């Protein structure tokens, strides 16, 4: 490397290191979490050791029972039992209560034989499926969360099958996220293109003012804008009042505009519209006005001149704006969480649900990994159309 190159690289080094530690490593941590889960393996090492050579069908034997009894008791003392039980429960539902109850009752038995004791506590210990579930939950590295996130399941013979139709959650959710984002992108384009055109062809003073009107929502707190939409759209809100006042809607027939998908789409279109207007506007400004005049003088009417001369030149701006809006839309969390109700939730909201409520962090990580992969592909595409190079903030 030449000396100026070393100097340039040295200047970027602090930020590269900073972003690496404060941002990239956290993302990597999340991805590791989605395939790596040592809780059960750490809590029941001996039990899992005993199950390693087991055929999965017969009785696992007294040694396995003894190890399980000892290690469940220890997990209970170390207060890790709850986490261990919830991991097992995700592999085989119902196992949580079996494990927790057994560990509590085991205290009353100072001595084995442990097989008899555990079968006495719960019949489920006689079922090989219970032990198979423990063995599966004991894998340190697992594709389970990704299978789960793709609505797949591993059958007891090890093959992979789709979940029954009524239990498929995440593929429809991903599909919904993508289609809703696509719809929002289309709306942003339909609304953003005409005003970008207006601003690009207005006299300078007015253009500055109109651009200010686009930028003000952009600078305004996202929570403020989302709150405004709740205020405007709720059944006793301003829009419904207006509709009732002009007689379009009966007072008892007010429309549910918020806390559903309508609310999500309206509020997100509003939030993301500036991200479409700005790149399209900056492309339009670079188009010499003489071109349209030349096309007109050659006999093309406005629609034809627009379609043949103007529109093609704005495509790179449209592409950059659309990709940006789409990228932001598929990862949106706050707006759907606040105005989406039950039906307007997107994939981000399920990640938050698994992080905060169900505490299934592995599944949250897997859903995050899938979303991240989608965004990464789109981001590369965005860079390809030159969006990254031309990215300007105003």
């Amino acid at each position, binding site marked *: *490397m030449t000396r*100026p*190159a070393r100097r*340039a*690289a040295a*200047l*970027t080094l*602090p*930020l*590269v290191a*900073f*972003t690496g530690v*404060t*941002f*990239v*490593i*956290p*993302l*990597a*941590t*999340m991805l590791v979490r989605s395939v790596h889960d040592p809780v059960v393996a750490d809590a029941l090492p001996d039990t899992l050791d005993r199950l390693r050579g087991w055929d999965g069908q017969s009785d696992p034997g007294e040694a396995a029972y003894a190890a399980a009894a000892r290690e469940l008791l220890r997990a209970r003392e170390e207060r890790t039992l709850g986490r261990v039980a919830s991991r097992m429960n995700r592999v085989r539902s119902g196992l949580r209560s079996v494990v927790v109850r057994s560990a509590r009752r085991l205290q009353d038995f100072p001595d084995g034989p442990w097989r008899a004791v555990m079968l006495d506590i719960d019949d489920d210990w006689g079922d090989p499926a219970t032990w198979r579930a423990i063995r599966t939950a004991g894998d340190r590295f697992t594709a389970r969360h990704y299978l789960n996130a793709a609505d797949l399941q591993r059958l007891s013979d090890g093959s992979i099958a789709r979940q029954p139709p009524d239990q498929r959650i995440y593929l429809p959710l991903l599909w919904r996220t993508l289609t809703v984002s696509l719809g929002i992108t289309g709306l942003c384009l339909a*609304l953003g293109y*005409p*005003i970008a*055109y*207006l601003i690009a062809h207005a006299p300078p003073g007015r253009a500055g003012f*109109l651009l*200010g009107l686009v*930028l*003000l929502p952009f*600078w*305004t*707190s996202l*929570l*403020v804008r989302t*709150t*405004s939409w709740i*205020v*405007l759209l709720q059944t*006793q*809100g*301003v829009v419904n009042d207006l509709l009732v006042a002009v007689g379009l809607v009966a007072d008892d027939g007010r429309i549910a505009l918020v806390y559903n998908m309508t609310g999500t789409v309206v509020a997100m279109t509003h939030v993301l519209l500036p991200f479409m207007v700005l790149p399209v506007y900056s492309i339009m400004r670079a188009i010499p006005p003489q071109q349209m005049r030349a096309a007109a003088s050659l006999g093309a*009417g*406005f629609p034809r001149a627009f379609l043949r001369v103007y529109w093609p030149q704005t495509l790179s701006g449209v592409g950059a704006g659309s990709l940006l809006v789409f990228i932001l839309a598929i*990862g949106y*969390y*706050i707006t759907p969480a*606040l105005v989406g109700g039950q039906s307007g939730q997107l994939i981000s909201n399920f*990640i*938050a649900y698994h*992080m*905060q409520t169900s505490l299934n*962090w592995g599944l949250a990580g897997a859903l995050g990994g899938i979303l*991240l992969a989608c*965004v990464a592909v789109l*981001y590369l595409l965005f*860079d390809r159309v030159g969006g*990254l190079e031309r990215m300007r*903030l*105003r």
Partner: protein
Amino acid sequence: MNMTAAEPGQRIGRIVHRTACALIFTFLMAPILVIVPLSFNAEPYFTFTEGMLRLDPDAWSLRWYRQILGDDAWRRAFANSLFIGVASTALATVLGTLAALGLSSPDMPARRLAMGLMISPMVTPLIISATGMFFFYSTLGLSQTHAGLILAHAALGTPFVVITVTAALSAFDTNLTRAAASLGAGPLQIFRRVQLPLIAPGVVSGALFAFATSFDEVVVVLFMAGEDQRTLPRQMWGGIREQISPAILAVATFLIVFAVLLLLTVDGLRRRAAAAGGR
């Protein structure tokens, strides 16, 4: 007037376009404009009461503003937001400006890769950043601390600084640095006396973007903040989720005024930069 403009088809087209634009601008501005008068509602409703429409002075009041100003939780939230915002902005601005100087050098190796890495916090969905940060910062003992939030917000703010300063530097005439060097100035002196004054507007706008990012950020805060780190957006989030009261609208109005000030400042800086760069 040129000839084509006089064609009736085109005139109709223009009217349709103008009308559509008026409606779209209404859509853009309505939410922000409606919330301001409603914050002066004397009643705990989210719609204009008849009294408000008649401009009856009794229907308007400052009660929600008094309530917010008198509330310890809101004051603490504001102080937290300010502290975390300023600290993370300072960090982001220094790191981002240095990096932009490197990126703008024609000799920078692997520029695209470096740029892609530096911009990535801006395009990564916040929910993913927040999830990852929660996992990683918890293992370092940084979750539920101010330091953790400052680092997280600085990471989210740096892309804005990198972009604005890179843009400012692209308008920068490199002959100036060469001239300064030929007159015997060292790299540090060139930066301080020649480059910095000219790119200062870009640095300040980047800093304002970074500050606005931190000041408005709620997802990372939801995942990482404890009771002591509640910020303004976190406090609003609670208010919107639980029982939405017009007090929220008073805070919202304050934030709108804040946004207008930010917008005007950044716009002023841009004009100054344009005038200085002759572009």
